[in-house]
């Protein structure tokens, strides 16, 4: 039986700890700086400057959000083991699964808070520059937040059994692959070899399809996005994260901390 209060306490502690991290503020500073830099870049063109400003802003949010997710997420378990605080926590009536879930939710909450801060900076810069803001931007930011939750799930999974360095490498690699999985499928579909087509299609199904959370183009060009697309992308993200967390719990429950 899962204890919601225990998970909530762990999540709140994780969030408090993450918020104290200097890495977080450094990345957040550069993200906001880059969002602001969009104003300068947009002056380099005589047309579509507002679009460039918002393009840079949305890219900064997604890029630095992913960086925060990876760099904070990879040390999630390692820090507890290194400081031996994990023994104290696990000696209490709390399961390893609850511990991991609490950690994950705490980090996701921290990152979503950062997305909110960066989103507000983006909105402020857009309004000051007279760039249009609409529902498309909200949808893009919402799905970017879901994408980051998936990235955090990956870093949680890897940090449950390996070192921070390897976890960072694996998570970064999967982040890249996640954005290429559609291309992989398309490339495979052009092959004459049936096996290659099957493998490419299989990989596309197994690897995260992070492009499904990318609505930047639609937001920048005010292209219509069906509500169902956003809802199903959200459900896909939540479901994929849940699968990764189940895997992480299964691994973490068998891990020996001696």
């Amino acid at each position, binding site marked *: 039986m899962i204890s919601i209060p225990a998970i909530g306490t762990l999540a709140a502690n994780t969030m408090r700890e993450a918020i104290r991290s200097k890495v977080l503020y450094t990345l957040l500073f550069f993200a906001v700086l880059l969002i602001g830099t969009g104003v300068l870049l947009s002056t380099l063109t005589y047309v579509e400057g507002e679009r460039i400003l918002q393009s840079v802003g949305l890219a900064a949010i997604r890029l630095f959000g992913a960086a925060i997710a990876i760099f904070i997420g990879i040390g999630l378990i390692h820090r507890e083991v290194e400081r031996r605080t994990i023994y104290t926590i696990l000696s209490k009536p709390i399961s390893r699964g609850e511990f991991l879930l609490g950690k994950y939710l705490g980090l996701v909450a921290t990152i979503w808070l950062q997305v909110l801060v960066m989103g507000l900076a983006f909105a402020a810069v857009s309004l000051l520059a007279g760039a249009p803001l609409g529902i498309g931007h909200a949808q893009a930011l919402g799905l970017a937040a879901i994408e980051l939750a998936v990235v955090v799930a990956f870093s949680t999974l890897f940090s449950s059994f390996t070192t921070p360095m390897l976890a960072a490498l694996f998570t970064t690699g999967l982040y890249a692959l996640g*954005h290429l999985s559609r291309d992989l499928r398309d490339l495979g579909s052009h092959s004459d070899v049936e096996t290659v087509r099957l493998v490419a299609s299989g990989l596309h199904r197994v690897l995260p399809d992070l492009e499904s959370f990318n609505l930047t183009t639609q937001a920048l060009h005010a292209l219509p996005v069906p509500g169902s697309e956003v809802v199903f992308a959200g459900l896909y993200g939540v479901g994929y994260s849940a699968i990764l967390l189940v895997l992480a719990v299964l691994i973490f429950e068998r891990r020996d901390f001696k």
Partner: protein
Amino acid sequence: MSWGRRWIFRGAGIALLVAGTAFARTQLPERPATESGDLFVPQPEVARLASLGYRNLVSDYYWLQALQVVGGSAQNPSAHAPLIGRLIDVVTTLDPWVDHPYRFAALWMTDSAESVRKADALLDRGIEHHPDEWRNFFYQGFNRFFYLDEDERAADSLEAATRLPGSPAYLPRLVAKLRAGEGGLDASAAMLEELVRESDDPYARAEYEKALDEIETERRARTLDAARDEFRRRHGRDIVRVEELAEGPDAVLESLPPELHGFEWVLSPEDGRIVSSWYGARYEPLFHASARTEREQMLRGGAAGSSRTESR
């Protein structure tokens, strides 16, 4: 060594280091990247894969590079047409919903028939993604008429533009003229005037105004041609100087039309035609007077280009 002295030495050392680095930096030549050939433009598909979900950002980067190429070569941006073509191809592959880059390519990719045709293909992509944008059809029609001498295809594009909201009211008449094979100066001027009106690009506007200026000069030169014919008929000989047309008791003209730039009308030493001493050559509907040789080469290249395309 005392604490204060140590810091003075350290400060002096740092200042020396900064000054030395700054000096070395000032000695570096300030060449634009495009001039030194440093600009790397990947294949569009490679760029799309390498952008890892940041397609819009990478697209914008290459768009700014394209602007730098044109801005950095104010004398003759069209000389960089192949580079501009590659850049805009990347820009529009990564983000096909961009709007202006398609017309930017149509404007600056005019050094050869091959470039114009590439810009035409890019405009097709633009039309596919912006089917309600009349300007893409208009630019396509203009390039086909002005650079490729393809009046029928130009009329097709312009006719498509007439059906779209915001297109100028005179377009149907222009289409009819082109269909009837009556392009010439009027059609060129009408299209150029529209391009001047709607262009956001100051460099582009200057180019169009220059072309309009040439057309107006040509109109005046044609008046002089007619007067020259009349002079021959009356006097049984040709003029030696253009001023003869407005001299003597039996002058053909009351006065010579003013040359637009304050220069004068002269007889070209090359072919004996009346020309403005500003331009030194006559305007041809298809060819910019100042670059006639290049345009002739362009047409020859175009023919070769077409056959290459057909052979593929």
